[in-house]
C-alpha cells in the first residue's frame, strides 16, 4: 500500500511539473484531452486500483474474523474508568485485574464490554481494536504466537484517566496454561 501510494504521489507530481514546463499547443483538440484526463486518469485508473485493493481487504478481513473452532479459549474483558477486569470461562470463579492470561498458540475469543463509558480493547501486536460499548458485547479473536508479555491499551477517549488506561496480556505455554486453569499461583 505504501509503495503504491508513493508511486501515485510521484506520478501526480510529475504531471503537475510537466504542465508548467511544457509549451502548450493551444490547438490541441479538447475531446482527446477529456478522453485522457477524465475517462482514463479520472475514472478507469482509480476504479481498477480500488477494486483490486478492496477485494484483497475483504479476503484479509474475513481471515481475521472469529470462526468456529474447537480449540478456541473464551475470556471476558470488562472495562471501566480506568481499569480492566478479565474473567475466564474455563476458570469461572477467578477474576484478574490489569492482566489478561491467555494460552500461546491457540485462538482466543475475547468478549468485550463495559460498565460505564465507551472504551476500546487494543493489543497492537495481537489484533486490531474493538470497542467496549455499554449494553453490547463484542467478540474479538486474538492469538499470540509465542509465550510472553504483550502491551494493551484502551483506544477510545474516556476522560481524565484515558492516558493511563492500559493493561497487559500474558501468553502462557501449554503447561503454564494448565497450571493457571488449575488455580496454581503463577
Amino acid at each position: 500500500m505504501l509503495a503504491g501510494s508513493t508511486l501515485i504521489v510521484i506520478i501526480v507530481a510529475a504531471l503537475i511539473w510537466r504542465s508548467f514546463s511544457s509549451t502548450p499547443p493551444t490547438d490541441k483538440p479538447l475531446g482527446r484531452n477529456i478522453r485522457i484526463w477524465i475517462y482514463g486518469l479520472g475514472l478507469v485508473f482509480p476504479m481498477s486500483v480500488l477494486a483490486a485493493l478492496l477485494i484483497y481487504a475483504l479476503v484479509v478481513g474475513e481471515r481475521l474474523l472469529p470462526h468456529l473452532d474447537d480449540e478456541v479459549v473464551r475470556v471476558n474483558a470488562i472495562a471501566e474508568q480506568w481499569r480492566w477486569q478479565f474473567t475466564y470461562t474455563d476458570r469461572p470463579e477467578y477474576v484478574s485485574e490489569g492482566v489478561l492470561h491467555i494460552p500461546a498458540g491457540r485462538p482466543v475469543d475475547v468478549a468485550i464490554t463495559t460498565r460505564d463509558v465507551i472504551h476500546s480493547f487494543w493489543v497492537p501486536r495481537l489484533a486490531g481494536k474493538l470497542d467496549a460499548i455499554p449494553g453490547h458485547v463484542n467478540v474479538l479473536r486474538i492469538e499470540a504466537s509465542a509465550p510472553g508479555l504483550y502491551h494493551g491499551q484502551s483506544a477510545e477517549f474516556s476522560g481524565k484517566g484515558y492516558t493511563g488506561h492500559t493493561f497487559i496480556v500474558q501468553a502462557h505455554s501449554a503447561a503454564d496454561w494448565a497450571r493457571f486453569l488449575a488455580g496454581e499461583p503463577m
Partner: protein
Amino acid sequence: MNALKRHRLLTRIWASDSGWKRCFTTVSHTDLGRMFLGMAFFYFAVGGVLAMLIRAQLASPDAAFMGPDIYNQVFTMHGTMMMFLFAIPAFEGLAVYLLPKMLGARDLAFPRLTAYGFWCYTFGGFMMLTSMLVGLAPDGGWFMYPPLTGPAASPGVNTDVWLLGVTFVEISAICAAVELCVSILKFRAPGMSLDKMPIFVWYALVTALMILTAFPPLILGSILLELERAIGLPFFDAALGGDSLLWQHLFWLFGHPEVYIIFLPAAGLISTIIPVMSRTSLLGHGWVVASVVALAFLSFGLWVHHMFATGIPHMGVAFFSAASTLVAVPTAVQVFAWIGTMWHGRPQLQMPMLYILGFFATFVIGGLTGVMLAIVPFDWQAHDTAFVTAHLHYVLFGGFVFPVLAGLYYYAPLVTGRRRFFRIGEYAFGLVFIGFHGTFFAMHWVGLLGQRRRIYTYDADTGWELINLISSIGGFVLAIGLAMVLLDLALNAIVAIRGKRNPWRSGTLEWSMMLPPSAYNFASLPRVTSREPLADIPDLPTRLARGEGYLAVPRDGRREMLTVSTTHAHPESLVVYPGNTALPILMAAVTGSFFLSLLFKIYWFTPFAVLAVAALAWRWVWGLGSQTDEEDQEIGFGETVPHAMQTDRSQGWWGSVFLMVADATLFGSLIFGYAFLWTIAPNWPPPQWLAFSVWEPLIGVAGAAVAIIAARQTPRPMQRRSGTTTGMPHLLPTWQSLLGLSALAAAFIGLLLRTPLPTEHAYGAVLCVISAFGLFHALLAILMLVFLVFRIRRGFISSRRRSEVEIVKLWINYAALIGVVCLVLILSPVLFT
C-alpha cells in the same frame, strides 16, 4: 441619466448606515461576507493557539505543562472551533460575499436572514469562547460520545456548553444554506441558465444542499442528549433502553458529509482559479459538476466508516468499506480535470497558484492515506492513533486551508481594489508549507508506532520523543507562517497602491464591477449569454455602469432585484428588499437568551424567550408587503414582470421549501433513531406500552384533513351583498384551518399527557419527542394562520397580493402531513404488540 448620477442614486438607496451603527444594522452581503470571514479567521487564530498548546504539551515526554483536565478541554475546543467556528463559517462568508457578485445580483435572497445568521454565529461563538476563558469548556472530545458526555460521567456544565453553543451556531449554517439555495436558483442575472453558472456556484449549491441534509442529524442528536442531561430522558442510556451507538450514528451521519461540506467549497475555488491562472477554461466542466453531485450523494453513505471498531456486522463493514473507497473516484475526476486544465493552458506561478500547488501536494497524500483507512484491516490497527490525526489534517488543511488561502490571494484585489506591493507572501507560503508537512508527516509515523490520539503525555522510553519534537517544531513554524500571511494580506489591504480592474483577466461577472465593490454591486443587471460574459464583452463593466442592463432606473428609493425562472433564467418577478435594520441582531440576542436560559437551567425563563422570538418573527414579516396592488413593472429590454408579492411562488415560498428539506431530514433522523432503538438497543421491550385509544388518531387525522381542505379554499375573494368582489379574501377557510390544526395540536397534547414513563425507558422518551415534534409544527402553523388573519384584516392581502397566503398554505399542508406521520409512528406499533 449618466453613469455618475446613477451611481449616486443607487449608493444612496443601497448604502449601509454610516458610523458605529453600520455593523449592527447592515444587511448588505458585502459587509456581512467580510464580517463572517473576519470572525472565522479570528476563530482560526484561537484554534491555532490551542493547537500550539497541544504541541507544546506533546513536545517532550512526561510534560508537566498541562494536566489531563485542561488538556482535554484544549483538544476538544481545538477540534470544535476549527470545524464549527472556522471552516463552516469561512465557507458561509465566502459564499455570502461572492455569490451575488458571481450571479450578477445585487444581494442574496434574504438580506436580513444573512445578518441574523451572522449574529447567531457570533453570539454562539462567544458563548463557547467565554466558557474556555473561565475553564468550563467542553472536554469530551469534539465528537462528544455519550455515555462519557452523559449526566453520570460529565455532570458539569462543560458538555451543555458544547450542545447548546454548537446548536446555536448551526442556526447560522441552516440560515445560510436556505439562503444560498434560493439565491442560486432564483436570484441570478437574466439569461444565466443553469449550464451558464460559474463553476463555484455549482459547488456552493451542492454544499448548501448538503448542509440542509447533514446538519439536522447533529442538531437532533444534540437536542436528545441535552434532554437526557436536563430532564433525564434516557436516549443513550443502555440500562434504560437507550443506546450510546445511536449518538455515533447521528453524529457521523452529520460528521462525514461535513468533511465534504468543508472540502467542496475549497475545490470550487480551485476549479475557479486554475483555469484563470492557466489562461484557459475548465477541462470537462460537465464532468466536474457531475463528480461534485456524485461526491455529495456518496458522502452520505460513508458515515459508518468512522465506526468500524464498534462491532458492526461484517456485511455492513464490507458495504461501507466499498462505499468509502468509491469516493476516491469523483475526487480523482476533479484532480485530473484540474491537472488536465493546466496541461491544456499556460499556467502562471502567481501567489494563488503557489497555494494550489501546496494543495495538490498535501491533498493527494491525504487522499491516499484515506484510502488506506478505508481498508478495514488497516483501520482496525490505525483507528484512534496519531495516524488518523495526521490523515485528517492532510485532508482538511490541504483540502480547505490551502485552497482558501489561494482564494484569499485571488480575491484580495476584488475586496480591497488594491494590488500586492509587499512581497511577504512567498516567504509566508514557504513557512506554511514546510511547517505543515514537518508537523503532520511525522505524525503518521508516530501513529504507526502506536501513539494514540488524545493522550496528554507519554513515557520517555516509547521511542516517540524525537518524532514528537519534530512535529512540535513544525507546528510552530506553521503558526509563524500563517501569522505572516495575515500580515501580508493586512499590509497590502491598507497600504498598497490601487490596482486595475480584473487583474487576473477572469471572464466571470464578479470582476465586471467597480473595485472595491459598490453597495449595489451592479448599476444595471447584465443579460448573460455565455459562461464567461466578461470574456465575450470586455467593456461589460462600462456598459452596465451606463445602464445598458436590467433595472437601470433607480425607483422610489427601493432596493430592487429580479428573480428568474430556475432553469432558463427568464425574468419572473420584481423583489423589493428590506432596508437596514437592527432587527437581526435583536432577534439573535433573544435567540441567545433562549439558549442561555437552558445552559444556566433557568427554565422558568425559557417560555418567555420563545414568546419573544415569536413576537420578533411577527414583527420581522409584518414589515414586508404592501396595502395596495401594484402594476407590473418595466425592467428594461421592453420586458415587464409582476411584483413578487403578487405571485404564487415568491422567494419566501422557496425559502420555506428548503427549510422544510432540513426539517424533514431532522424528522427522518428521529424516525431512524426510533427504529434503531427498537431493533438494536439492549433492554427492550419497555416495561409498559402506550395504551391504544381511538380518540387521538381520530381527532388528529380529522383535524389535519380539515386544515388541508380548508386551506385550499383561500384566497377566495369575498362577495359583497351587491354581488361584486372586493379583492379581499374570505376569512372563513382560515378559521376552519385554524380549527383543524387546533384539533391536531390537542391530539398531541393528549398523547404527551399519557405517554408511559418517559424518564424510565427510551420508548416513552421517544414517544414524547415525536408528540412534541408534531405539536410544535401544529402550533407553528397556527401562529402563521393567526398572522394571516391579521394581515387580511389590515388589507395586506388581496386576490392579487397572494404570496403570503401561498406560504401559509404550504406550512399548513406540511404541519398536517408531519402530524399524521407522527400519529402513525406513535400508534401503529401499539397495534402490533
